[in-house]
């Protein structure tokens, strides 16, 4: 009995229950007020929207996200912080240590990942016409939810988790610049994820992940409101995170950590967070405008009231194209940092690789209208946007060239992490090369909204997110847990996921050229699309099987895996010079950085001088 009661001492349980109560109270009060001013008490749109907002705020307050700030604001004496205990309950409470928050982010993302994949597998089964369990609206809702869950509840939080865990360790800091803000940005993710997932149960939303009005503004079920608020919260979280990461990188670097002594992942973080800091406001506002139109009857996108439908697309893509680079830049950073360790060679063209991250981000901000070539934008916009789109391929090419040149004549160690990096490069190359024809106006007019676009997008995200994430998990798991993942299972997973990725992407590209439209629920068997759809479905199931192996591997290895020691990969980066898992405040003494982080095989190359104490510790282990 006591054990059951103990569950309520976990912040997350208390927070979620309080959130539900807060939502209920908000709904009740709104209905009373509506009744009092003579409106019908129950109108699902406005009532549940207010309920969601009150619920989220109650949840955050009960979690304690605002406690410190509130005490500060009323000028109270600051509380002495208790020394943290090593206990699993820390992961379920509001905690300000960047390593705890990083793991929280990653576990949340990895929890939603199989769910989001499974959703699409149902859709794939339906399209392969082996079994057809869905009707058109359910199908649309499922695939739309797959898209938004993946991008905003899996990709962004997974990368936030990696950045949180790694950035202070990579630049030689004890924590992030604003630890409490960091905690707040994490705790916005669970409600965002739950709202996005549960939108399916309250009617779903049938617009595809882009939520274009007029369909999104007129769709009758409140699932649409859930998704709009859920994604808004995720966006808010990444803006707050961006402020934190940028400040940390600018202000908290160890002495001697000049810009060209930072690992490429830090450069990628700079580029990524510069984009999220600024452009996310546009998607947040465009989603709020749709919400205002649905709930308050505003007329931004309603032509009858003088609104413009195309306005949404401008606002949406102004964010969502840079966002694509947000989704992949960190993956490219992981690839750049991993190859030198396993090739035992310095990263080829380090400065060019570092700056190309900024180049991709800067170029990515001025290409957004290429999503709208078929949407009736003015003709004079098309050619400039085509040119800028093609230009983005240049800094990306720099990276791929540097990766291959780093491996060239290297002393390769074929570990699972390295294998995932190889698959990621090939997949990302397919994604990049299929992007070029899509950027060319006449070709795009033919391929727009076909499976070619879906295939291209999945190739970039598998190559830029999923496979690099797997590489990062195999690479960093020893640091986080202190134990190695099983390489045997890892290689099995790599094989399944690589075959799965290929089977998933190539048929999609073929389908697109043949003329199969995306987001279409049905097709005629006489068109001959079915074998390719079946291949895609098989690819999806293989990837899912890979994820199951990963889960099993992580759970068993965390308990029984071989002890990792501080530096199993023999890496030069700061993070690997401390114990695994790292101590509470990372560095007993702030290290002094004296050289490049990639000087493998270069005689006398030193990245950083750690304190004498830490060196002794490493020797003893």
């Amino acid at each position: 009995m006591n054990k059951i009661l103990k569950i309520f001492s976990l912040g997350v349980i208390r927070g979620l229950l309080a959130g539900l109560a807060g939502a209920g109270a908000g709904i009740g009060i709104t209905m009373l007020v509506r009744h009092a001013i003579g409106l019908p008490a129950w109108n699902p749109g406005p009532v549940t929207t207010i309920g969601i907002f009150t619920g989220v705020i109650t949840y955050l307050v009960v979690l304690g996200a605002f406690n410190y700030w509130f005490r500060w604001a009323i000028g109270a004496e600051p509380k002495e912080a208790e020394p943290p205990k090593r206990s699993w309950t820390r992961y379920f409470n509001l905690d300000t240590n960047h390593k705890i928050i990083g793991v929280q982010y990653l576990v949340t993302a990895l929890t939603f990942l199989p769910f989001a994949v499974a959703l699409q597998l149902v859709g794939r089964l339906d399209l392969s016409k082996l079994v057809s369990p869905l009707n058109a609206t359910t199908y649309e809702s499922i695939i739309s939810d797959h898209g938004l869950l993946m991008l905003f509840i899996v990709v962004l939080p997974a990368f936030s988790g990696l950045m949180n865990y790694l950035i202070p360790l990579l630049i030689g800091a004890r924590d992030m610049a604003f630890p409490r803000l960091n905690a707040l940005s994490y705790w916005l993710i669970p409600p965002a994820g739950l709202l996005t997932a549960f939108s399916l149960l309250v009617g779903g939303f049938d617009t595809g992940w882009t939520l274009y009005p007029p369909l999104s503004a007129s769709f009758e079920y409140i699932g649409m409101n859930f998704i709009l608020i859920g994604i808004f919260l995720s966006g808010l979280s990444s803006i707050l995170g961006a402020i934190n990461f940028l400040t940390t990188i600018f202000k908290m670097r160890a002495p001697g950590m000049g810009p060209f002594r930072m690992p490429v992942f830090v450069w990628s973080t700079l580029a990524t967070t510069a984009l999220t800091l600024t452009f996310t406001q546009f998607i947040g506002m465009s989603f709020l405008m749709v919400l205002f139109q649905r709930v308050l009857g505003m007329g931004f996108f309603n032509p009858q009231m003088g609104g413009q439908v195309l306005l949404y697309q401008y606002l949406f893509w102004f964010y969502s194209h840079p966002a694509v680079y947000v989704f992949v830049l960190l993956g490219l950073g992981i690839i750049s940092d991993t190859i030198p360790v396993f090739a035992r060679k310095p990263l080829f063209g380090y400065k060019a690789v570092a700056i190309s991250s900024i180049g991709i981000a800067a170029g990515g901000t001025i290409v957004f209208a290429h999503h709208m070539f078929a949407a009736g934008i003015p003709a004079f916009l098309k050619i400039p946007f085509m040119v800028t789109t093609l230009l983005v391929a240049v800094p990306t090419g720099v990276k791929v060239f540097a990766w291959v040149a780093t491996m060239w004549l290297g002393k390769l160690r074929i570990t699972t992490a390295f294998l995932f990096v190889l698959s990621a490069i090939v997949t990302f190359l397919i994604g990049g090369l299929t992007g070029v024809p899509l950027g060319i106006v006449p070709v795009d007019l033919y391929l727009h909204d076909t499976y070619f676009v879906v295939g291209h997008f999945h190739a970039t995200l598998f190559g830029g997110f999923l496979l690099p994430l797997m590489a990062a998990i195999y690479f960093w798991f020893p640091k986080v847990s202190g134990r190695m993942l099983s390489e045997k299972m890892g290689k099995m997973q790599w094989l399944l996921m690589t075959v799965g990725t290929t089977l998933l992407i190539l048929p999609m590209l073929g389908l697109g050229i043949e003329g199969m439209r995306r987001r279409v629920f049905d097709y005629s068997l006489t068109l001959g699309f079915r074998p390719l759809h079946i291949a895609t479905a098989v690819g999806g199931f293989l990837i899912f099987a890979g994820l199951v192996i990963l889960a099993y591997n992580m759970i068993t290895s965390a308990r029984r895996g071989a002890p990792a020691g501080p530096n199993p990969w023999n890496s030069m980066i700061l993070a690997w010079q401390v114990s695994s898992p790292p101590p509470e405040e990372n560095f007993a003494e702030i290290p002094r950085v004296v050289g490049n982080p990639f000087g493998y095989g270069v005689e006398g190359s030193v990245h950083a001088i750690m304190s004498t104490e830490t060196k002794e510790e490493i020797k003893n282990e």
Partner: protein
Amino acid sequence: MSDEPSVEIFGVEHVKASRTPVYLGMILFLISEAFLFGSLFATYYYLRAETKVWPPAGVHLDTWLASINTFILLVSSGTIWWAGRAIRKGKESSLGIGLGLTIFLGVTFLGITLYEWTHVTFRPWTNAYGSTFYTLTGFHALHVFAGVILMVSMLTRTLRHRFSSSNFLPIEVSSLYWHYVDFIWILVFTTIFIIT
């Protein structure tokens, strides 16, 4: 800025206020907010460019009232600047007076805005013009409201003697925010009331 006095952070180091992480964090936040208002201005000007009659027939705005509001916010920028200068010299009571005046002016601005909203002839759901008008002024008013809350908390801390000539960073950072919100109002005012 060379004569800028330094502040204590972490209780030991003496750093110029503008070099602290908090100051940079606020600047980054304001850059982000620029994009929030950017999306609202983009919406306004896009709709305006695509609409034949702008503002639509029957829209009458009280430019005089809005001008008074502009004046109020400009004065409040002055009072918060004065308060900040006072605490650098260690004058706690002047800081309190400056903050109190700023809060009073901010609340007056919000009151006039509320009066304006209830006295214009259109509503957010009347037409797209109404939607952008209320969203633009609404989000700005929300920022003023947040600023007032920030100032109230600064005043509370002042009354509890939390600030001194070596500890005034929160005042610096809050007044940065306040000036920024005033600057945005100039843009909103110009967009809605001047360029018609």
